[in-house]
């Protein structure tokens, strides 16, 4: 036959919500006839309340604002990374377009004027749309850096595809 010590262990499990339904029924039957275990249960309940209230604390400072600020920052950085990945193909297209434009200008083939205009238009619109998209999603502080990156990119493209000059100032 189970002793009171056994039932008192079961009381602890029950109060922790870890006792099976069948054992709870058995425990309830025992508690109905055992004043000592009933008293143990009442004391255990008070002890738990004491522990719960004594160990529950409030943070000394606000947590919400710093966490939301960090999340905003993380979101912004993820967007920068995501946008950079998205922009890579566009930059490639820009460079290819610029290459084509440079070739056409160098050949001075006016018969290819529609192709030339089409290339320029495509290049400009792709670039414009990309940067509009970035403007929508990026916070202001990243704008300076990205603008500098864009200018650098433009300068590199211009330098790469500018007509090479020989001494005397004549282009190839």
């Amino acid at each position, binding site marked *: 036959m189970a002793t009171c010590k056994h039932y008192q262990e079961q009381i602890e499990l029950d109060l922790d919500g870890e006792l099976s339904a069948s054992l709870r029924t058995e425990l309830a039957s025992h508690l109905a006839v055992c004043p000592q275990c009933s008293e143990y249960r009442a004391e255990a309940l008070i002890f738990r309340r004491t522990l719960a209230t004594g160990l529950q604390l409030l943070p000394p400072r606000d*947590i919400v604002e710093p966490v939301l600020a960090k999340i905003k920052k993380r979101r912004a950085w993820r967007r920068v990374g995501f946008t950079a990945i998205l922009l890579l193909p566009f930059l490639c297209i820009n460079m290819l377009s610029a290459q084509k434009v440079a070739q056409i200008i160098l050949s001075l083939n006016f018969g290819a004027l529609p192709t030339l205009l089409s290339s320029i238009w495509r290049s400009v619109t792709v670039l414009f749309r990309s940067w509009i998209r970035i403007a929508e999603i990026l916070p202001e502080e990243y704008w300076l850096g990205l603008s500098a990156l864009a200018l650098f990119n433009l300068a590199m493209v211009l330098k790469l595809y500018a007509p090479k000059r020989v001494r005397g100032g004549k282009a190839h």
Partner: protein
Amino acid sequence: MLDEQLVQRIKAGDNAAFTTLIENNQGKVYSVAYGLVRNSEDAMDISQETFLRAWDKIATWRGEASLSTWLCRIASNLSLDMLRKQKRVVLVREIVFAPGEVQRGPDADILSAEQKAELENAVAQLPEEYRHLVILRHAGAMSYRDMATTLGLSLSQVKNRLLRARQMLKRSLTGRVD
């Protein structure tokens, strides 16, 4: 609001829902972190990191445990990681809080200041593995299974150690807690 609804709104990018999640659980998360690392600043850092992890991993929440249990599990893992890294030895005298360092929860006024201090001292003097269990169970309301997973124990070890921890606490507080 139900946990599922809250998670759906957070997944949809609703900042107000995430704020609700923090406000509802910050006390519990901080209590678990503070109970384990015993340092207010570290506990604040862990609490913030817990919610950042939650924001990152909210898609992985499957509803097997409540959100608050899930958050407490993250907080306790972060706290235990910090303890492992620091290999901090907590001296008993550090447990007696400086006045104003710790704010109690809304129900804490049920206990007198003397009782609170005695309870803190009694918990602090428990062996570490017992103290962790008491904090996770009574500050974090974690289940035996969650505690077993977090602390790398078996269910019967959790049951026996928690029982023993409470017996030690009762002995230590005999005549002090009504």
